């Protein structure tokens, strides 16, 4: 069964303290790995898509990487406004666009 697991569930950082969020996946025929940011009371906001192992994408303080078994979201020198829940999702070999979501990592960055 296809599965996406995120760790840790929650992460508290001081402003400027870099760290990484993990997304492990067992999705047969992975066709894309997606990262989203979700603020309380809002829908997920798209951040990155990664399609093949070794691929990296960057946006401001965020960098996403992909291997054959997991993806990392690296946060460099985070600011309080980076506080949110980060979701990853895998798209498998089916031709439906159906995503398998992880449970998310809730990040809190303290000033």
């Amino acid at each position: 069964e296809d599965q996406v697991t995120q760790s840790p569930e929650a992460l508290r950082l001081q402003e400027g303290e870099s760290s990484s969020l993990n997304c492990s996946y067992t999705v047969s025929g992975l066709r894309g790995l997606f990262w989203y940011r979700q603020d309380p009371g809002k829908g997920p906001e798209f951040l990155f898509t990664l399609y093949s192992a070794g691929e990296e994408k960057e946006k401001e303080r965020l960098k996403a990487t992909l291997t054959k078994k997991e993806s990392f979201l690296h946060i460099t020198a985070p600011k309080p406004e980076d506080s949110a829940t980060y979701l990853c999702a895998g798209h498998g070999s089916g031709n439906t666009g159906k995503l398998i979501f992880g449970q998310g990592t809730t990040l809190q960055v303290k000033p």
Partner: protein
Amino acid sequence: DVKVTQSSRYLVKRTGEKVFLECVQDMDHENMFWYRQDPGLGLRLIYFSYDVKMKEKGDIPEGYSVSREKKERFSLILESASTNQTSMYLCASSQGVDQPQHFGDGTRLSIL
């Protein structure tokens, strides 16, 4: 910019009522999706549609139906609302099956 609009942010209904949740996208996307999001369970796919008048069941379709009469609009229908359908409902759309899904801000539905 991509825009997915859900008709209500908050909705309170009674058990047994028929409930309609509306979603409109302005990007001419082919695919549209309905999810529910619950603490500890994450996002679960209810139904999706890859073309007008086409629909496919997701992981938890029981108690729900959908309608897609026009490309830009995808409606979720709770045939007879029950308290276990209290949840956050999220609509999304995408251009193609390998493209990212873009979400609306959700409808928080309470069934009393």
